[in-house]
């Protein structure tokens, strides 16, 4: 019979006392494991999501953290919107020209041209003699148009486009259940990368990405993140009706306009899993999303066919687009860009190093990261839509350029890490208290134990042996408590997963461990030259694995005193 079995029998014999001691230790370890795992997994998730395919967010001025939480993690209260001009400012020439053709001013110009052309044709038909005059008029009109095109920069790229390799507009404010509805462009699925290092893109578990315009669904197509689809029980072909505003607020209402689910994304382990992506063209057409402009001018400007799309124009603008059924009614015209806003822009910067512009554009690039030094200047607004009479009616809106990586780092340095340390200290103190309970438990039974020790000594056990048995008892109690606590901690995480996910956006399962530490790097080993391994940074040991040796050390520390007491037991006296 070995020493461990003798120690185990002693633990068994002290039934309730041992159970309570183990539970006490388990409680402490459970909390340590929960704190380590939740913090570790959440921070790792945040940091991995910081490996964004974009390095700048243009959003409304105010809390940069809130903008980051909204646009990166789809969390926190919705923020204000920013003028649509900022999107135009970062568009390349093709995209910008396409956008400008959706403006009221452009539509009005088309109407004027058609009217002029019709008049010329009418004049030429009735008075053939002045056909030359008509030709001259048309030529003059073309000349005027070219001047006008140049003035508005129809073929020019956005004023800030040189800085941006990719720009994706994001529109927030609607919900589907607890999930955020994200109105965005088709670029989201084409240009957005899940991991900039590997170039990984979104993949679809079912269906496809939404189209800019679809013959059947028009602008009303949606793509669901894996989590959103699963929790809402949705599949491709279903129709969803987003809620305007936070569903918990009184002012919220469900949009009449439905979006057809055309795709469900594969799980990415990122906040995108919790998002509902809809075509922003459809998003803009929903009631409550139209921004006010100069109404007099707007009524003069009736949209006409867009040559670049095959959609048919109705010739009149419905007051309530939501009443239009996509299956039976004609296609709604796109919302003019003058009536649009965006919540934020996700920008992947170019690798060109630039000094901050004198006009106030306040970011420059170093490598691939923007250095943010202030707010983006209002001058952008002038350069993009300054030419149109149909200026949006809005208060002066300031925007800011945000580095999401810096924000996430700041969030952790200033808020999450200090709280983690406080929690860790508290939970470690619980473990120490639990360890002391082991000491109390063993020591309080010492009077009874001394007699047993004396008997064991009389049977031939040495002082060292009884000391070892007592230490093993302490260690066994601690390790058992630790193992139960470990399982309980992970079970707690799994049970609290929905709550954690709703607060942080990160899903934690039973088998999610606290992230590892680069142990060799900490010890000063950068590599093993004779093995040809240059970098040992990849070799990491989960902090949870340090728990058991830590507990054994703690148990030895608290077990030493009873063990010494056992060692010193006077056999002759204790045998009685």
């Amino acid at each position, binding site marked *: 019979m070995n020493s461990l079995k003798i120690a185990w029998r002693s633990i068994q014999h002290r039934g309730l006392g041992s159970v309570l001691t183990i539970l006490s230790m388990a409680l402490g370890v459970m909390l340590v494991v929960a704190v380590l795992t939740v913090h570790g997994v959440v921070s790792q998730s945040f940091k991995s999501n910081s490996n964004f395919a974009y390095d700048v967010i243009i959003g409304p001025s105010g809390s940069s953290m809130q903008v980051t939480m909204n646009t990166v993690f789809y969390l926190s209260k919705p923020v204000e919107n920013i003028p649509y001009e900022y999107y135009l400012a970062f568009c390349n020439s093709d995209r910008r020209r396409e956008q400008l053709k959706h403006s009221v001013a452009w539509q009005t110009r088309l109407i004027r041209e058609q009217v002029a052309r019709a008049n010329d044709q009418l004049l030429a038909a009735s008075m053939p003699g002045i056909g030359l005059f008509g030709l001259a008029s048309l030529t003059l009109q073309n000349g005027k148009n070219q001047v006008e095109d140049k003035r508005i920069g129809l073929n020019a790229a956005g004023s800030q486009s040189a800085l941006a390799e990719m720009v994706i507009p994001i529109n927030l404010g609607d919900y589907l259940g607890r999930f955020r509805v994200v109105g965005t462009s088709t670029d989201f699925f084409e240009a957005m990368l899940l991991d900039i290092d590997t170039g990984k893109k979104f993949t679809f578990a079912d269906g496809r990405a939404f189209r800019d315009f679809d013959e059947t669904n028009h602008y009303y197509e949606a793509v669901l993140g894996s989590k959103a689809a699963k929790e809402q029980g949705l599949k491709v072909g279903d129709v969803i009706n987003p809620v305007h505003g936070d569903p918990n607020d009184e002012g919220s209402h469900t949009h009449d306009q439905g979006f057809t689910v055309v795709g469900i994304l594969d799980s990415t382990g990122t906040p995108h899993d919790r998002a509902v992506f809809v075509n922003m063209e459809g998003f803009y057409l929903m009631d409550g999303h139209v921004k006010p402009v100069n109404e007099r001018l707007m009524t003069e400007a009736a949209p006409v066919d867009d040559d670049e799309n095959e959609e048919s124009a109705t010739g009149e603008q419905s007051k309530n687009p939501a009443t239009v059924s996509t299956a039976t009614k004609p296609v709604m015209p796109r919302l003019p860009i003058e009536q649009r806003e965006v919540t934020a822009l996700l920008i992947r910067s170019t690798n060109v190093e630039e000094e901050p512009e004198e006009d106030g554009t306040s970011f420059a690039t170093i490598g691939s990261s923007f250095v943010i030094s202030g707010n983006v200047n209002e001058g952008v607004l002038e350069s993009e839509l300054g030419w149109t009479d149909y200026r949006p009616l809005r208060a002066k809106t300031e925007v800011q350029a945000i580095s999401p990586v810096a924000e996430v780092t700041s969030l952790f340095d200033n808020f999450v890490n200090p709280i983690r340390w406080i929690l860790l200290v508290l939970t470690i103190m619980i473990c120490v208290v639990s360890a002391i309970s082991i000491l109390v438990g063993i020591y309080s039974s010492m009077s009874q134990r001394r007699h047993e020790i004396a008997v064991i000594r009389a*049977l*031939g*056990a040495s002082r060292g042996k009884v000391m070892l048995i007592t230490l093993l008892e302490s260690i066994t109690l601690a390790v058992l408590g630790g193992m139960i606590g470990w399982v309980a901690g992970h079970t707690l995480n799994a049970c609290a997963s929905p709550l954690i996910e709703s607060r942080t956006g990160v899903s934690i399962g039973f088998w999610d461990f606290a992230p590892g530490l680069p142990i060799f790097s900490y010890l000063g080993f950068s590599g093993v030259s004779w093995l040809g391994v240059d970098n040992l940074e990849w070799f990491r040991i989960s902090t949870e694995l340090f728990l058991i040796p830590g507990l054994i050390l703690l148990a030895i520390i608290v077990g030493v005193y009873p063990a010494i007491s056992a060692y010193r037991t006077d056999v002759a006296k204790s045998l009685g």
Partner: protein
Amino acid sequence: MINPGWRTLCILPHRSTPFPRSPFPLHAMLLLKDIKKQYRQPNGEILSILDVPRYEVGDGEQVALIGPSGCGKTTLLHIIAGITQPSSGKVLLDNIEVSKYSESARDRIRADKIGYVFQTFNLLPAFSALENVLLGMTFSRGKKDVPRAQSLLRRVGLEKRATHKPAAMSVGEQQRVAVARALANRPTLLLADEPTANIDPRNQQKIVNLICDTCREEKISLIMVTHSMQVADQFQRIDKLEEVNRVVAEALADVD
């Protein structure tokens, strides 16, 4: 004077090798020479407990040791077992001078060569009957021998109670388990300290018979301390401690 324990520390043999025997073999299994045990009282006075000029027990011999309470019977057994060091004198067990060794060495000698049956049985309550018997051989050089433990339990008539804890057994059964435990390490000397004191008369004889018969069969020397003349009369040799221990003899002489 150099502590014998320290003196012998450097020549302590490996656990698997036998302790060196005396170059002058004796016929006795146990020999006590000039054993004295004294305690210093709180007032500084020396209190003598034992003064045994010579005491022998032969190989396989069975001895009943009787004497009044407080005459040092248990102390004498503790000295023989190496639990207590004598103040002076020598203890030779199986030709090994036990008293010159360190405490840990004496622990090993005790584990290998001595069986001990206590008055209060001293079974460990957390262990089953079989495990208690196995404990008797756990600390000796021999390996754990479950068949022997089961055979011993069979011999004491408790093979069906092997898995029972002491609390679930009668007093007589507990003492039988204690006897089996004391025999588990195949001792050369069995020390029984009033093994029948807490047992009803009907079971007393069974226990005595069990101990004596087993020791006879396994050729184990036996010293049984008892108050009962009825028990002592069954032994060929009866030693009165007042004759063995000069301290008691002098005390009795003073009383007279």
